[in-house]
């Protein structure tokens, strides 16, 4: 379902130079994915798993593009080695746009244990994070994305369940 938050997020990423997107599906990211599917100004493809997505994004960056992966925060756990031994080791800028499943509002209890770990795991992995609690936080995406490019590093945008649910 497209909504203003989906449009704000994708516009902010594109305005900051992101031009290559992959996604692992999430109910909360369906609006963004729908926008990307219909956007001929960027490259977009769905992938089967987060780790695979990091590999594809690394290849796209070797070819000169600025990649973003859309994923649930649970996918962070699937991708630790790829982020460490590929993305950070070869200094590849990438934006991780993550729906923060397991944050308050989440109806699926199994999402919570990984959700409790996510902020601390990002910190331990030395990944700069923008945690969006409110709509106005989206305005800070531009500087974070520029930071990824300048430092040739991954950055994460973590979006609360309740914010993603808003229309």
């Amino acid at each position: 379902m497209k909504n203003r938050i989906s449009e704000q997020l994708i516009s902010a990423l594109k305005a900051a130079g992101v031009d290559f997107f992959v996604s692992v599906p999430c109910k909360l990211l369906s609006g963004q994915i729908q926008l990307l599917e219909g956007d001929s100004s960027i490259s977009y493809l769905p992938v089967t798993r987060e780790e695979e997505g990091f590999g594809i994004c690394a290849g796209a960056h070797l070819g000169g593009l600025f990649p973003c992966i859309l994923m649930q925060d649970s996918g962070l756990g699937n991708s630790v080695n790829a982020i460490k031994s590929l993305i950070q080791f070869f200094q590849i800028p990438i934006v991780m746009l993550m729906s923060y499943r397991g944050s308050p509002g989440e109806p699926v209890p199994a999402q919570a244990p990984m959700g409790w770990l996510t902020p601390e795991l990002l910190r331990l992995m030395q990944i700069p994070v923008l945690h969006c609690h409110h709509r106005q936080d989206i305005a800070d995406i531009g500087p974070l994305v520029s930071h990824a490019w300048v430092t040739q590093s991954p950055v994460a945008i973590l979006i609360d369940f309740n914010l993603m649910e808003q229309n």
Partner: protein
Amino acid sequence: MNRYQLIESLVPILEDTLVICNIGIPSQELFSICDRDNHFYMLGSMGLCSSIGLGLSLTTKKSVIALEGDGSVLMNLGSLATIANRSPENFVLIIMDNGSYGSTGDQATYTSESTSLAMIARGAGCDNVIECSGIDTKELLGDVLQQRVPSVIVSKIDPGSQPLPVIPLHPIILRERFRSSIKS
């Protein structure tokens, strides 16, 4: 023919392509046989060679070859579905299938028993899947590069690896020289 001999036979036609080479001994063998700027040796991220190759192939007109192993493909089978549906004409996946985890002590993989990666690739939707002997691989690779059809080549070879040292290149030097070779 083992993997070292297969790589040795392919090196002449790899010159005009961009090569993503699987982690561990395959990269060490390629590096030792012939080191060129258009080789991207995976130094980490086990299993992601085919994915890096696909991502790169979507950004360039040059031919991109992912030099993969059977064990590596088995741990990222979803990649075959993505390749089947999104591979451009300039991408070739070569699976050097020696039925063995060569970098970790030659433990057998399931391709040495019942599993066929060619059948899995076909089932994933890949159109041009070729299973061949190591000896025939060079000629078949030359053909698909000339025809520019996205292809998966499963090259059946013997197990066994050369004892070689770790690649002494800094990752950023490796990245930068590879990127220069894309532009040249």
